[in-house]
């Protein structure tokens, strides 16, 4: 959603024109060769240039983990903080300074395990930050333990016989926390990643972007089943606002309503026509269908990428600001002393 404020910002910035390099710091990037983070970082530089907010007005906040090193590679304001707390820190930063564009970088461990509480509350509060959730379903920096998004049975160093617990589906948490923006991409899908980053930045309120990311060292092929070249067309669907939900090598497949659920069909077979295929609407307030789409796992139904939900709602920091303005103008105290003299019982000693 593009609201009027963003529109005017974009117009102001249109003249300035920033290049991706303007957002890039001089620090050498230390991720493992082949890590999905490299691609995401490069796309982020490009997305920021497209969004056009100046580096001096951009702040990138991260927690702890491989992906959380990202702020050091940005030529913006930035904080590399403590494990799990990026959402809380970003909330304070944005509330204090609504004029800044604030990004949060978290991995699945940082954002959904130790930082799970801050994550759901940032989403519920609808603070206008852009949360990039790098999901590689593993703890990389501590060298390979299972994370809250690891599949049941995942064999890792801390689960040598396989995990005995179910994972979080990040989208489900976002909907549970009454989120208004959810998008997904895969590290290798560069254009889609840029598209969803830009959409997230333009959305007013908490935006969550899940980026499925490969860990070459500890979880090689974490999303191979859906992202390998020969499999991608059949196992993913790129959702676009106002367009039919089609996928497949020749866009011959579509999603249709099936009772309370969704079903993949081939257009022209079993009596299904193009008219039966659903049209994507990310902006509809009811999140029932968004949830259904976000929960597709790439196995029986294709994994949805692109902007799945994008609904306008009141954002926290703006409401705080409005309340401050309205209370201030109503009461009109000049300063602390004026307030005390106006509201407290006082007496004068001559």
């Amino acid at each position, binding site marked *: 959603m593009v609201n009027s404020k963003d529109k005017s910002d974009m117009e102001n910035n249109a003249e300035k024109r920033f290049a991706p390099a303007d957002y890039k*710091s001089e*620090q050498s990037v230390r991720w493992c060769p082949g890590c999905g983070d490299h691609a995401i970082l490069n796309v982020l530089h490009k997305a920021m240039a497209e969004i056009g907010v100046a*580096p*001096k*007005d951009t*702040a990138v*906040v991260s927690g*702890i983990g491989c992906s959380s090193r990202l*702020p*050091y590679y*940005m*030529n*913006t*304001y*930035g*904080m*590399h*903080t*403590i494990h799990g*707390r990026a959402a*809380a*820190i*970003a*909330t*304070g*930063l*944005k*509330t*204090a*300074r609504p*004029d*800044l564009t604030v990004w949060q970088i978290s991995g699945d461990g940082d954002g959904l395990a130790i930082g799970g*509480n*801050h994550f759901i*509350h940032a989403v519920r509060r609808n603070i206008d930050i852009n949360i990039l959730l790098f999901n590689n379903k593993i703890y990389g920096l501590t060298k390979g333990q299972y994370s809250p998004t690891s599949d049941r049975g995942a064999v890792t160093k801390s689960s040598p016989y396989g995990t005995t617990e179910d994972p979080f589906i990040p989208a489900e948490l976002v909907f549970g926390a009454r989120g208004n923006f959810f998008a997904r991409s895969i590290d290798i899908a560069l254009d889609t990643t840029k598209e969803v980053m830009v959409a997230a930045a333009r959305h007013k309120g908490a935006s969550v972007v899940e980026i499925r990311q490969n860990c070459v060292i500890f979880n090689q092929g974490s999303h191979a089943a859906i992202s390998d070249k020969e499999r991608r067309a059949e196992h993913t669907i790129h959702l676009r606002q106002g367009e039919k939900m089609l996928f497949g090598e020749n866009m011959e497949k579509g999603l249709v309503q099936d009772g309370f659920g969704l079903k993949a069909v081939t257009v022209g077979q079993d009596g299904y026509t193009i008219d039966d295929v659903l049209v994507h609407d990310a902006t509809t307030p009811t999140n029932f269908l968004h949830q259904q789409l976000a929960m597709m796992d790439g196995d029986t139904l294709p994994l949805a990428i692109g902007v799945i939900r994008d609904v306008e709602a009141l954002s926290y920091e703006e409401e*705080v600001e409005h*309340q*401050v303005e309205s*209370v*201030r103008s*109503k*009461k009109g*105290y000049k*300063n*602390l*002393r004026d*307030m*005390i*003299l106006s509201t*407290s*019982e*006082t*007496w*004068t*000693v*001559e």
Partner: protein
Amino acid sequence: MLSGTNVKTLDRVVVRFSGDSGDGMQLAGNIFSNVSAGEGSQISTFPDYPAEIRAPQGSLSGVSGFQVNVGKGVHTPGDEADVLVAMNPAALKTNLKFLKPGGIIICDVDTFRPADLKKAQYATDDPVTELGINPDRIMLVPMTTLLKHTLEDSGMDPKSILKCKNMLALGLICWLFDSPVESVLRKLQKKFAKKPAVYEANAKVIQAGWDYGHNTHSSMPTYRIETESVKPGVYTDVNGNTATAWGLIMASEKSGRPLFLGSYPITPATDILHELAKRKDLGVKACQMEDEIAGVCSAIGASYAGDLAVTSTSGPGLALKSEGIGLAVMAELPLVVIDVQRGGPSTGLPTKTEQTDLMQALYGRNGESPLCVLAAASPTDCFTMAFEAARIAIEHMTPVILLTDAFIANGSSAWRVPEEEDFPEIKPHYVDANRVEQGWKPFDRDENLVRYWAIPGTEGAMHRVGGLEKDIKTSAISTDGKNHEKMVNIRREKIARIADDIPELQVNGAVDSDTILVGWGGTYGHLFTATEELNATGNPVAFAQFRYINPLPKNALEVLSGYKNIIVAELNTGQFADYLQMHLPGKEILRINKVEGQPFMVREIVDGVLKHIKK
């Protein structure tokens, strides 16, 4: 009014109001202390309330108390009460121990019903005899009956009528203190300006209380309180938590940085959040976060964004915030952490007072993580020290922990509303454009080792901070051991140099004596009064109260070294004594300790000092 033959003049008088939580004892106490303050008395108040929100009516556990001390030279709410108001038999039973020998009791005799007596666990139907109270010192007033008669034509329902009982007690107190009811009525009129009917009813009840005392109890001695002259100005009655909130607002005005509070409800610190939440009318952003950790972390984010950032909590919350505070130490960001200490460990005694978080504040973080620790001495000193905490945080780019406690946070005193020029400007340590142009690095420092504050939006000063160690020259991440040690020492030295920017330790009392009584934080009033008493009874003692704990005032160790006996009195098992002992290895630090969840009594300190010096 009494003929005056029986009027005693006293320097100060302590009144303790007690009853059920819903009896409005705090309101009656507040009005009484404010009226006295308006007539020139010093005041000190202290509420003593149960942890339960609404314990069963009439039960022993449901009794709450509110003690006020008014008069001349008032520094504490008083050890014991001259007058005890007890609204029911449970209050009488639990509060009798706070009454001075020979003190007066005012009690609602209408509540001496079998059911009430049973709830309060009396064995007989005569509480006065059972508790061994001298019948000449107790006024058994049929308050409920009087109340019903007074308001029978008011058209009020019985429940609303009963709510006025506290005002009947207040009327009796006015009579007892030889004080006309007019000034009380003026306060009430203000309070109920929008509810004239409520005012009328309360006014009638106060007068009825006064008349009852006057007509029936002329044999009881009444009191006249001495007043004293204080600095001219506008005064108000303020408790420590409100004063803390206001001190922070003052610092925001004096520094030009907007005030941000990230907090989470916790007894007894929540009133700071309440007050700052109201102060949106002064531009304050007070955010109730999802937990204690988010409280401190949102403040750290706001600090990086350029605000005067604060988080408020009590002991258990401080424990949760430790890692966040460590980040502020490492990133060298200004941050004010308020810890309103309560009884611990763990959930402990949430509504009671203690000074047991000192070591946690000084050392409760991983790694070498020095920061500045301050402590407020009284309810009104909370204002000054909150301002100081903000000033030091902003001018020295460091987290500062301010320790207050449940006693001074809830207690109140009369306070002169500061004038514009009473507090200095606070100068944020901004990076200037010149420095940015010359290749500024985020951990470049001035001669006091303080780094510069580059607020987002500043052109050319984009930079990253974080919890990882930084290179001393380039400010980039560094894992080099030698570099780390240098940075550890710099952070330590930066805090040590704050000593050049704080007042020296003041010594009062018999400065030349060979004994010094030492305290810190909220015990000031009790220690001060104990010092006065000791000196007045031929036991010369000097006295010093610490408000700056880390770093210590520059002259502190030298001053203390000059005394033969150093006696540290504190509400813990000896944390500050241990801290001083570490700095003064050659000296034996003597101790007076109490960990009962209650403030000191003056006599406990007097006795403790005498015991030490007579050895």
